[in-house]
């Protein structure tokens, strides 16, 4: 498959507008502006594009809800919070192909009737902030942003908003609270952001990768796009692969590429002498899979059937040197730290799970601790205000399901056999 999202990024000046234009950039914007917004909307629906932020919601559907709301102005927020541990897929777009994102956002603004966009960028990406700001400035100078885009009287303004280190701000309603200057605590839904979002106006939140697909849909048409990769969720997908593989990195592959191929073909297989033990396939919030379960298609429909989730497509590969109790403990330390504190099951549950896992990891686990973990996770599941708490519970359940013996060993032997 030809690359689109990562096209031209080997060019050291790929972030510069003249290089982007030389490689065909902003041509899709010009093409889009010759079409009517509703025609483009049809193409998007035909394309079958689903959001790449983790939940896989159909983009065309989300957009038609926002478009149907008569209130103006409407805001377009790009979710560049990329906080899910293991995930670094949006970073190459932000740092090496920023004009692709800008082009995608201008097209989106045109379709949605939105004249104001913001890129909510995680605070941990200071270099990307400079690159994006420089790219936005160039785009204004070339009339791809501003009050008269391409001389067609079309208006779209764009600014970067930097977060400050809070994972929960990746959740779309928390992101909106945060951009309004508040603590990033999720809002009740409904009303949904498409009706009452930022500054109480209709607001569309989409991931960096989702918005960067727009120029591609314009380039090849919705029909052709829908034929790439999986039938039920087509298109190119970025996978970030980390851990004990030979060639970790970000790979652009058709949606539905098998997890096995990602590990053994694209990422070069396991590092010398090591053997696969487990994979976290979609970022730390997705349940772990054991080595014998990696023969599955990486998309939003197949992964739940395989016992996990596609999430952000962040594949964390672990060899046999890794202690799963320790991974579970580290993951829960993360969730406890990032819980926003708004709802009891998550605030208390993550704290408890972490405490029990910590004592197991340190060799002080007690008889009945595995059941205790399952109980706490079971109580949390489906009772938290937002998916963060559910994710934490699911992670613990997955670990116990596939690696119960390791948890039992820790309790029985009072130590970890893998620790030297």
């Amino acid at each position, binding site marked *: 498959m030809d690359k689109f999202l990562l096209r031209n990024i080997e060019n050291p000046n790929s972030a510069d507008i003249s290089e982007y234009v030389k490689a065909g950039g902003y041509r899709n914007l010009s093409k889009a502006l010759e079409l009517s917004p509703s025609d483009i909307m049809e193409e998007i629906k035909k394309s079958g594009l689903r959001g790449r932020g983790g939940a896989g919601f159909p983009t065309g559907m989300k957009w038609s809800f926002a478009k149907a709301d008569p209130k103006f102005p409407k805001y377009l927020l790009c979710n560049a919070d990329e906080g899910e*541990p*293991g995930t670094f897929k949006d970073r190459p777009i932000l740092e090496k192909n920023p004009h692709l994102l800008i082009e995608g956002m201008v097209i989106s603004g045109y379709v949605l009737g939105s004249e104001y966009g913001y890129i909510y960028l995680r605070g*941990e990406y200071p270099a990307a902030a400079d690159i994006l700001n420089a790219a936005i400035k160039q785009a204004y100078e070339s009339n791809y942003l501003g009050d008269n885009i391409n001389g067609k009287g079309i208006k779209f303004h764009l600014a970067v*908003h*930097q977060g400050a280190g809070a994972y929960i701000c990746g959740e779309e309603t928390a992101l909106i609270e945060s951009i309004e*200057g508040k603590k*990033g605590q999720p809002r009740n839904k409904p009303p949904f952001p498409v009706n009452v979002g930022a500054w109480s106006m209709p607001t569309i939140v989409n991931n960096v990768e989702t918005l960067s697909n727009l120029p591609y849909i314009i380039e090849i048409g919705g029909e052709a796009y829908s034929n790439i990769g999986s039938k039920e969720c087509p298109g190119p997908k970025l996978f970030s692969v980390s*851990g004990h593989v030979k060639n970790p990195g970000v790979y652009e592959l058709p949606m539905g590429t098998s997890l096995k191929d990602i590990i053994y073909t694209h990422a070069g297989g396991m590092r010398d002498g090591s053997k696969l033990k487990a994979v976290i396939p979609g970022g730390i919030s997705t349940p772990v899979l054991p080595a014998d379960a990696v023969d599955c298609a990486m998309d939003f429909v197949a992964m739940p059937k395989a016992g996990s989730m596609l999430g952000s497509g962040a594949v964390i590969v672990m060899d046999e040197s890794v202690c799963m109790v320790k991974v579970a403990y*580290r993951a829960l330390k993360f969730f406890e730290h990032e819980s*926003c504190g708004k709802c009891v099951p998550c605030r208390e549950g993550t704290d408890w799970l972490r405490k029990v896992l910590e004592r197991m990891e340190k060799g002080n686990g007690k008889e009945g601790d595995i059941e205790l973990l399952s109980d706490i996770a079971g109580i949390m599941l489906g009772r938290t205000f937002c998916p963060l708490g559910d994710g934490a519970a699911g992670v613990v359940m997955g670990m116990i399901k596939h690696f119960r013996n390791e948890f039992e060993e820790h309790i029985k032997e009072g130590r970890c056999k893998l620790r030297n």
Partner: protein
Amino acid sequence: MFNETVLKEIDDIKARYPDRKSALLPSLYVAQREFGWLSHEAMECVSKALNVPEAMVRGTASFYSMYRHRPVGRHVIQLCTNVSCMILGAEKLVDFLETRYGVQPGGTSHDSRFSLVIMECIGACGTAPAMLVNTDFHDNLSEKRIEEILEKYK
């Protein structure tokens, strides 16, 4: 109080949003740059510049982990220890930073050269372990590489 240049910078930030409160996060970054950390005085300046109650400024600032609520050293090391970094040895690096530079997680070395903050994934998992020193990324870390890198931060 902020000087004229900084107030102008904050005015420019405000102009990017439909509502002045939205300028709070970026303005806190400005205050942190000016004062080195978010002292009481720093937050008071933000409150005045944005005309937002101090309680809201403090409440918001306390929620986010990248704001500093006590003085920090000349350089802030932000080391990731989340899973991708952990399985490639990040924890040993925490110990190394302590023995070699006398800096503990959440603390500052006696000579005020370094502060250390433990991070939850900085998006460099493919080149783990990784850290930010101030705003610079450094990855594929080992003890030796950390020594080489930190030479440049006096």
